[in-house]
């Protein structure tokens, strides 16, 4: 099931394999507001109004439970379905227990399990006790019956039932099904809960940890997985260690470790990972006496994600910005505001292949008066991916080494070289300085060779980790220590370079090592494991659930786990041993969380997008009660009086992100050379718009001009007897390059998810009219 993704257009090489699966008898389901190139190849298509994924999936929970399609044994023991929830936990009119309206957040005191005197969680594996997670979930989603759901999503009933039946059938132990998603899922004010709802559906159907199962994030760029793993986000350090904050619980390394290390599950090893990371950061300057340099880490107490940073820039709170391969003047939400924010900077460094709209934000073609702009702009030419070497990690967590194909032109440099040059120069600048601000810079251990070109092999060795005394590479993260005797730049990757001359990311052995695994091709973190939580691929006795679905199994003679993959489990822990049936080793309880808290609550609940065309049918909470609502200038919210039409943005096969790469390439530019807005024939008729007409699209943030593309691939939704229109448009265009066009993000709002602050690009309100 492909929902919130369009792989035929945005991940075409993945689609090659999907079509092969289809040849082998697999069924492809496409769920999307618009009939896409993916939908055209799918076996079935379901339309859903943008921003109604939770209703759609909640309806599937209901269907799967009511029709007894869930994988009963799996649910009973491999998830927390049997756990008894706190007696006071409740849900009413869109809110879970503990909501604080003033803070727009929850007190989670009742979002916990009942425990006995020894602290053990109370369970009922018959799943009949009304306080079990299963019964609470069943009750919660009993409201999501098919008719109620389609009255929100706008899906045609016959299609919905066909999809429910088809995907629901994967709950049988003989079958598995996977869910593929992308930014159509995540870029919502309920983005995290959208993803979580998919994960819960897969737990219900017993599709996690099994071959052909799981939920698969289709990343927005080829190395999004790698960059996330390496903490290109504001709230994590490499390897998903939380960033310490300016708070009492993180005041010292001891406090951080005490408050951030769970009492059970694999994360009990966290102290080893954070200390080894600090040793990688600060080298010999990290000692047990100075808490391994922990105090050098900057600590704040704000949100530092994209929207927050641009709001701060707009409010003159930030002086400088490095934009590495990023083009917010085109790609940022509320891009007009973000462009204005750049003018408040003292300096901007744009690192890119071309002069992007961001680098040129101050020019006349950008609509600015250069004389009014005081921002000093530096443009550093960057090398393209094939002009440098290094690794790219795909969404299967395969870390694949790539070699340089050609030299860069002119002065273009790899990002690594640019960072290296900056680091060595900044360190030189602060050498001998003993002021407070200089200390972390001087303590930074930057030892990647001499000159401006860093030795990438030294970087790779540091990531893997080494013994700080002997310098010898460690075998993998199980060898990392919390006493400073090891360093590792990213514990989850530790093991990709276990000994000299063995950088496993360079492996290219194309042999199927069983069940479609290619264990000797590249390296998959952690420890070359291809399917996470693969203990769940075997039943209670440690045997595969079904023939043809084997991953790992318990070998009773050898008393160890054997199979086609690296076991995601202690190799010698028998199914009958304590915890032998707890596959989800990274979670404290060892089982999958049907009940698991995000900021909105333990069960995903449908809320309308921030800008919605219709009142919420499920509760009086119109939009996510825990999102941060930005106030101040240029944060207007559009209502249906002026903006009755739902809009979404997307990408097309032929262009790449903000177009910085593709609009500077003629052969791609000619394929999609104009900014367009897709709309249904019905809406076009209503508005007197003909195909190819120039139209104006307006939202509470701005207005743009584009061509109308009138198509049968968009249909109006009939929602509670009301006809609701939706339009869609690519966000690839800007004012630089061979082909130019209006910037779609002049329309999108500064509003984000309650957990991640990912912007709601995919559902907002607008109006359309003919340009003349």
């Amino acid at each position: 099931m492909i929902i919130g993704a369009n792989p035929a257009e945005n991940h075409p090489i993945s689609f090659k394999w999907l079509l092969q699966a289809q040849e082998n008898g697999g069924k492809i389901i496409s769920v999307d507001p618009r009939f896409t190139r993916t939908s055209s190849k799918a076996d079935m298509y379901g339309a859903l109004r943008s921003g109604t994924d939770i209703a759609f999936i909640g309806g599937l929970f209901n269907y799967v439970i009511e029709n007894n399609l869930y994988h009963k044994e799996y649910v009973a023991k491999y998830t927390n379905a049997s756990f008894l929830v706190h007696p006071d936990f409740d849900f009413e009119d869109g809110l879970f227990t503990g909501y604080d309206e003033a803070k727009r957040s929850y007190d989670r005191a009742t979002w916990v399990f009942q425990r006995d005197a020894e602290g053990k969680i109370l369970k009922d594996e018959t799943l009949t006790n009304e306080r079990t997670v299963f019964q609470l979930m069943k009750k919660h989603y009993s409201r999501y019956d098919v008719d109620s759901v389609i009255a929100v999503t706008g899906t045609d009933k016959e299609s919905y039932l066909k999809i429910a039946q088809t995907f629901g059938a994967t709950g049988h132990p003989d079958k598995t099904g996977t869910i593929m998603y992308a930014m159509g899922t995540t870029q919502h004010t309920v983005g995290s809960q959208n993803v979580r709802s998919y994960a819960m559906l897969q737990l219900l159907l017993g599709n996690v940890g099994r071959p052909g199962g799981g939920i698969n994030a289709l990343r927005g760029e080829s190395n999004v997985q790698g960059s996330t793993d390496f903490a290109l986000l504001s709230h994590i350090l490499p390897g998903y260690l939380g960033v310490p904050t300016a708070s009492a619980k993180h005041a010292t390394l001891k406090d951080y470790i005490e408050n951030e290390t769970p009492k059970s599950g694999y994360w009990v090893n966290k102290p080893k990972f954070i200390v080894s990371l600090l040793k990688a950061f600060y080298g010999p300057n990290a000692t047990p006496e100075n808490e391994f340099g922990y105090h050098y880490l900057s600590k704040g107490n704000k949100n530092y994600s994209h929207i927050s940073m641009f709001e701060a820039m707009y409010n003159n709170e930030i002086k400088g910005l490095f934009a590495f391969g990023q083009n917010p003047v085109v790609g940022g939400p509320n891009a007009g505001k973000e462009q204005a924010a750049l003018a408040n900077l003292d300096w901007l460094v744009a690192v890119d292949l071309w002069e992007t709209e961001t680098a040129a934000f101050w020019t006349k073609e950008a609509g600015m008066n250069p004389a009014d702009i005081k921002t000093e702009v530096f443009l550093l030419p960057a090398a393209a991916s094939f002009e440098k070497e290094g690794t790219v990690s795909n969404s299967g967590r395969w870390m694949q080494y790539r070699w340089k194909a050609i030299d860069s032109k002119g002065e273009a440099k790899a990002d690594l070289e640019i960072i290296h040059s900056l680091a060595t120069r900044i360190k030189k600048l602060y050498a001998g300085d003993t002021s407070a601000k200089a200390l972390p810079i001087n303590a930074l251990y930057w030892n990647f060779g001499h000159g401006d070109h860093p030795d990438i092999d030294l970087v790779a060795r540091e990531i893997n980790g080494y013994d700080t005394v002997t310098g010898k590479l460690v075998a993998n993260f199980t060898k990392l220590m919390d006493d400073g005797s090891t360093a590792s730049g990213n514990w989850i990757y530790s093991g990709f370079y276990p000994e000299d001359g063995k950088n496993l990311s360079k492996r290219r052995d194309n042999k199927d090592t069983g069940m479609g695994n290619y264990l000797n091709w590249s390296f998959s973190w952690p420890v070359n494991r291809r399917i996470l939580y693969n203990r769940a691929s075997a039943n209670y006795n440690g045997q595969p659930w079904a023939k043809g679905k084997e991953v790992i199994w318990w070998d009773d003679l050898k008393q160890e786990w054997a199979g086609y993959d690296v076991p995601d489990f202690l190799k010698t822990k028998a199914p009958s041993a304590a915890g032998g049936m707890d596959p989800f080793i990274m979670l404290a309880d060892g089982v999958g969380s049907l009940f698991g808290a995000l900021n909105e609550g333990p069960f995903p609940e449908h809320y309308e997008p921030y800008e919605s065309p219709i009142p919420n049918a499920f509760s009086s909470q119109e939009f996510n009660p825990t999102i941060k609502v930005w106030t101040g200038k240029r944060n207007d919210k559009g209502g249906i009086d002026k903006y009755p039409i739902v809009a979404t943005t997307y990408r097309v096969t032929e262009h790449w992100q903000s177009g910085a790469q593709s609009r500077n390439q003629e052969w791609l530019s000619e394929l999609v050379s104009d900014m367009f807005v897709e709309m249904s024939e019905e809406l076009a008729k209503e508005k007197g718009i003909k195909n190819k007409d120039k139209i104006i699209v307006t939202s509470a943030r701005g207005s743009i001009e584009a061509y109308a593309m009138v198509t049968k691939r968009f249909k109006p939704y009939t929602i509670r007897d009301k006809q609701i229109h939706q339009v869609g448009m690519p966000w690839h265009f800007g004012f630089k390059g061979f082909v130019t066009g209006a910037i779609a993000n002049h329309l999108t709002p500064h509003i984000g998810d309650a957990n991640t602050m990912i912007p709601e690009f995919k559902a907002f309100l607008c109006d359309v009219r003919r340009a003349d």
Partner: protein
Amino acid sequence: MEYIKYIDVTKCDGCRACMVACKNWNDLPAEFEEFHGSYQSHKKTTANTWNVLTFTEHVTADNQFEWLYRHSSCLHCTDAACEKVCPENAISYTEYGSVVINADQCVGCGYCVQNCTFDIIELATKKDENGKEYKVAQKCTLCTDRIAEGLQPACATVCHTDAIMFGEKDKMLKLASERLNQVKERYPNANIYNPPGVGGTHTVYLLAERPSVYDLPENPETSYTAKLWKDVAQPAGKLLLGASVMGVVGAYLSNRLFNKEVDESSLNEGGKDDEQK
């Protein structure tokens, strides 16, 4: 060895890598056309855009919606009208089954353009070393230069779904007929497009719908006049009467040849004489 480019449109996901690969290999310039109101970038093939992916929104008889794609390029007919009407013998068949234009022999008369059964060939405007403009007919070569080196056509090489396959004629035709049975359930109107009226083609389609849905003629034939020109008038003219008289003899025929789009007055334009003005 006779080869076929076999295009299974039911496997195509419309990515258009074939269009980029073609331009890349053949070093063809981008052509920016006006907005066509759909995902289609070019109305049809041109002298510098040798293949165009067509996008068709189609509602079937039982009210099913289909979005159909077709890699449109030269079909490399066995009885190619272009080859037959070319007064300079600039167009020829190769041993691989491809129909190719010799740019050095081509005088840009446009007969081939007017007579192409599938409206594929067009004239490119180029400049000689003195900056003088001249015309030359251009179209897909089936990557004959690549085939000669043992390579597949560029479009087939990049097609990630194997919607474009290239291989020995019999093998490809067998693949197509096997595939036809597989896709009939989803596409009851599916058919193999290898029209006998042009002697069969070396670009063979497995279409999901009737040819007309894809703007292809249902039963195309190499025109009688084109055959007559090539097989009777031209050899007769060249052999017996000399080129200057040939024009007179061929007047009736050429009139017919140009009937397709241009009026009679344009008969006086184009061709070698015009070219050398």
